[in-house]
């Protein structure tokens, strides 16, 4: 019974994210607003917005009808953000999620980065924060890429880092994660990830890079909420880019066990 209840809770997240990708013939299919302001009501718990653009626009990515469009105002606060929050997860010990991402920002310099996906636990390790996994959109020196910071209390920084260039520099990319938590002080937590052109099929057995294994991540206690959108942008991002330098998101889905893919 408990498992069924929790699965239903997560399925709401699936429905909500579908709300950003409704197939349909008119803009009326797109919800207006995000979180508490959404109409019709959706499963996003809240919208976080400060000195930014956060809208639902049409068309979406990859032939979908709608997508979430975000941008920060130029010279905005370090706290500037444009994101949606899903608080339906409940200390999930395994969490799988997928979303699509596209940006036209000429993002090549590593000094320009912003948090785009934050996986938050109910706990924090001593001296740390509740962020169990963070994905940043960043320049790699020559191209756009993603930086994964996955929690591991065995590291002095409490995180391990994985950098992945975006396969589709000018269009939509699909990002999927499969995060497993160690029990207690165990060291068997794991992160698998897929980063692909949205048009390219992916399979459960062939992640993009080697699994990040041996994670001591039990201190985060699982996944309690996730935040999709942009936040925590670097100073050069906030000074260089304007409210028309968009980062677009679509097709968010989250599950406990099964691969999501296309």
């Amino acid at each position: 019974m408990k498992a069924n209840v929790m699965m239903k809770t997560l399925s709401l997240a699936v429905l909500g994210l579908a709300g950003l990708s409704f197939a349909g013939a008119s803009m009326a299919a797109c919800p207006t607003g995000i979180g508490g302001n959404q109409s019709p009501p959706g499963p996003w718990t809240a919208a976080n917005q400060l000195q930014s653009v956060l809208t639902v626009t049409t068309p979406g990515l990859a032939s979908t009808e709608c997508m979430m469009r975000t941008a920060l105002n130029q010279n905005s606060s370090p706290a500037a953000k444009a994101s949606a929050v899903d608080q339906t997860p409940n200390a999930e010990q395994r969490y799988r999620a997928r979303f699509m991402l596209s940006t036209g920002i000429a993002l090549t310099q590593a000094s320009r980065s912003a948090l785009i996906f934050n996986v938050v636990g109910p706990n924090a390790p001593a001296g740390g924060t509740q962020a169990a996994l963070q994905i940043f959109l960043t320049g790699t020196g020559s191209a756009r890429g993603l930086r994964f910071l996955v929690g591991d209390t065995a590291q002095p920084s409490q995180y391990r880092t994985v950098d992945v260039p975006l396969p589709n520099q000018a269009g939509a990319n699909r990002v999927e994660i499969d995060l497993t938590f160690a029990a207690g002080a165990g060291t068997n937590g794991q992160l698998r990830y897929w980063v692909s052109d949205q048009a390219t099929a992916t399979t459960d057995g062939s992640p993009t890079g080697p699994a990040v294994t041996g994670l001591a991540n039990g201190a985060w206690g699982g996944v309690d909420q996730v935040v999709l959108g942009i936040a925590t942008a670097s100073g050069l991002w906030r000074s260089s880019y304007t409210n028309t330098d968009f980062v677009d998101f679509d097709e968010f889905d989250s599950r406990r066990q099964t691969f999501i893919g296309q």
Partner: protein
Amino acid sequence: MKIKNALMVAAAQLLLAGGAYAQSCSPAAGVLNDGTGSVNINTCTSTDQLASICNSSTPIGNAPDTVYAVQIGATATGQIQVNPTGYDAYAALLQGTCTGGATCSREADSNGTGGQEVITASGLAAGSYFLLVTSFAASGNCGATGITVVPTMPVSLQNFSIN
């Protein structure tokens, strides 16, 4: 559901032998309500309580975190004004719990050093909130601060006459 979750977390913490904790804060500065009017505080006397707020998506550095408990009533339309002296204040209204994972229902960081930041209550759900005042500056990030509560103002009859 979150209550159940909290119990599970508490049990997990016991098993972790001190390895994890709920990143929480305390409203040590007191309580703000419609009757508060204006209060003055030196935020340098506060401690650095949280490393990250707003669903743990906004790192707030090592500046002191001054935290008040705030109860918002239904259809409240008032505001809280933060008037810092000599530093650049950032204010956030945390909803429900005083934790790094709480959602920030309102934030304000519109002005620079010495500039007023305003948190408005209009549109907020009734319930418990926490006002956190801090700064992103690496140094010179605290100081004398006036906090003014402008309550929900009833329409008052100023004059009435029949000629």
